């Protein structure tokens, strides 16, 4: 059996000082009541918060200074990201750009794309969405049918994307499209493009989720033009790029801290003298959290070293999102609560409601639990 690599590193001094800076920044945000921490998370959109985070230097931290970054390590970014999550910071406006679109452009984008886009991401002014899933291409990403065809003026995109979070707020989508034959592996002929949503030929329609929120969308492209230098990497290299990108998407602390605020409220509600059952159940959740922090941190270090820890990332997401699904279930067993979104003044009931209504997405978004376990099994030599 392959050994998955999880060598938990220590945070270097640079990461610790960024951690302290982020903690102070977030304490001010909360003290000034700039966002309701018990109701918000990384998947809450707040353009104002992202601008403030950008101004404070917390976006694109690892990128070159020439493109607006600060050339810090992935471990420093890890520390800051974890602080944001723990504080329930409404980071979704910049989250995708910072986590995966920006790094993708940095690694494979044209010089113009880097110069135009990255500094704006760093300032917290430029938001991205991910154009991977399609109506008939969900877990089976290789079944993508959106087509990009080469014309004299650039690439013309036709097709549709679905479950596109943020599309209605985003300035750009990175669109995965078919540019050639799939081949026997089914992974050939796919290419990623940066689609500027201010251009004509794109129609964005809302899909409301069961919590009543408008987070994701269906996006239609009709002869939508993408200039040559907004193609990401080589034509046909899309699959490898997406695979690597998913390691960033799956391994971060956002895969186990989405409902950290509910855990805080649970501990606060239980109080300083828990009964044995409360202590055992809360203790158990915390032991899981300690493991996940270590696993995620070690993947951050592997990414720093330029490795592709796809399997380790899948493990973080599988273990992490299962933990996230458990938090509300444990919380309501320990403290009697009737969850309600609009029971003003009852922070615990509101936090529980918010999480219960959103929890189904935890083990779906970014790759379902079952797909991830299939990947892990392949890594174990079972497939």
């Amino acid at each position, binding site marked *: 059996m392959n050994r998955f690599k999880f060598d938990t590193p220590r945070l270097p001094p640079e990461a610790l000082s960024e951690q302290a800076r982020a903690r102070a920044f977030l304490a001010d945000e909360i003290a000034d009541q700039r966002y309701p921490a018990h109701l918000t998370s990384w998947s809450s959109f707040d353009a104002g918060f992202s601008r403030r985070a950008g101004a404070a230097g917390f976006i694109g931290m690892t990128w070159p200074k020439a493109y607006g970054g600060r050339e810090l390590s992935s471990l420093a970014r890890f520390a800051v990201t974890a602080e944001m999550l723990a504080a329930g910071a409404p980071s979704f406006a910049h989250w995708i750009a910072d986590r995966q679109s920006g790094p993708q452009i940095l690694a494979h984008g044209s010089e113009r794309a880097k110069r135009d886009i990255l500094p704006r991401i760093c300032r917290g002014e430029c938001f991205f969405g991910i154009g991977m899933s399609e109506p008939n291409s969900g877990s089976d990403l290789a079944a993508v049918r959106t087509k990009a065809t080469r014309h004299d003026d650039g690439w013309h995109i036709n097709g549709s994307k679905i479950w596109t979070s943020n599309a209605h707020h985003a300035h750009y989508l990175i669109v995965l499209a078919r540019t050639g034959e799939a081949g026997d592996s089914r992974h050939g002929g796919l290419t990623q493009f940066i689609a500027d949503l201010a251009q004509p030929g794109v129609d964005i329609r809302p899909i409301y989720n069961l919590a009543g929120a408008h987070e994701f969308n269906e996006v239609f492209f009709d002869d939508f033009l993408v200039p040559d230098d907004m193609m990401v990497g080589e034509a046909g290299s899309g699959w490898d790029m997406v695979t690597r990108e998913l390691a960033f998407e799956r391994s971060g602390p956002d895969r186990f801290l989405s409902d950290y605020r509910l855990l805080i409220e649970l501990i606060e509600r239980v109080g*300083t003298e828990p009964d044995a059952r409360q202590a055992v159940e809360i203790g158990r959740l915390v032991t899981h959290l300690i493991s*996940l922090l270590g696993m995620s941190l070690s993947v951050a270090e592997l990414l720093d070293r330029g490795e592709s820890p796809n399997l*380790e990332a899948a493990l973080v997401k599988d*273990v992490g999102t299962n933990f996230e699904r458990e938090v509300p279930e444990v919380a309501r067993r320990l403290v009697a609560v009737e969850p309600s979104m609009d029971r003003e003044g009852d922070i615990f009931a509101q936090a529980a409601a918010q999480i219960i209504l959103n929890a189904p997405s935890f083990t779906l978004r970014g790759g379902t639990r*079952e797909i991830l376990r299939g990947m892990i099994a392949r890594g*174990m*030599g*079972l*497939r």
Partner: protein
Amino acid sequence: MIDEAASSDDVTTIINDQASRLFRDLITPKLLASCEREPSPAGVWASIEESGLPLALVEEQYGGIGLSLAATGGLFALAGYHTVPFPLVETIIAHALWAKAAGGTLNGPASIAPANFSDRVSIETCSDGYRLAGGIRSVPWGSQAENIVVFAQAGSGDDFLVLLPGFLTWSTISSNLAGEPRADMVLSGIIIPGDRVRPAPPGLDQGLMRIGALARAFQMVGAMRRAIEHAVQYAGERQQFGRPIAKFQAIQQMLAEAAGHLAASEAACTRAAAEMETPDHLFFAAAAKARAGEAAGRVAEICHQVHGAMGFTQEHPLHFATRRLWSWRDEFGGEAQWQEVVGRTVCAGGGHALWPRLSAHS
């Protein structure tokens, strides 16, 4: 600094490679089976002693290897992986504790006590040395150990380590689910001469439970890895419906879950080892034992399910790992007890104090 870290990593790698080879050669299914029926053979223990491994944690000035506890975790995991049927882990800890407390080395297999939350040993001075009271139960390998390092508390609040001779009379000798001997002793009235009693070194919160629990957590990581390897191999070989059962998604999903439990347990152990010298060492050791203990049950269940009836036989070696998992998860405190320790610590600090505690990876 960097050179020093690299060289201590190198030493760890060398020790672990040596241990792997030694265990692979020595620990056969036949030996494992015989050690459950009769005392573990002295000749094999002599080979382990010759390797120097029992002195892994003892400082170099006392003739040991001087590994840190963090580095020794890997060796404990290897001992778990190979299901070493000797008190190697207990001996490593006992030797290190006694060297630290008394500045000398011990010989022979040794153990530590108390090994559960309920036993208490008290100690008071008397004309011939020290008088003990209380009892120790389920001392791992107690009846085959030459010495047991016992944590004892005086009425004054001072803590002591007592080097209890293993030849004293054990009231009960039993075994755990893997046939590893466990022994009880009534200590009330036993007089120990002064040269076998030392003030306990600082940092022994919860007596020896913390260090014993963390060692068992590492051992469980090793035994879980072994059980999963057995299952992966078996799933690739066993054919049903015209193909290896590894090709069935139901099998793949179960084993992926097991891999997640293993990775999570290992991460918790690594963190606990890294926190050994911080004020939160008890908290993180508790978390490691609880997390690995919870994982052990699930991993054993999954690996048996994959093996079908074959894994339920004596003939297949899976049970050497899984029976240990079922015992080790309850030794030095079960997961619920350690979860409670973690939970009470967290609640006492309040919800907002949790994050600074968890995020201080420094």
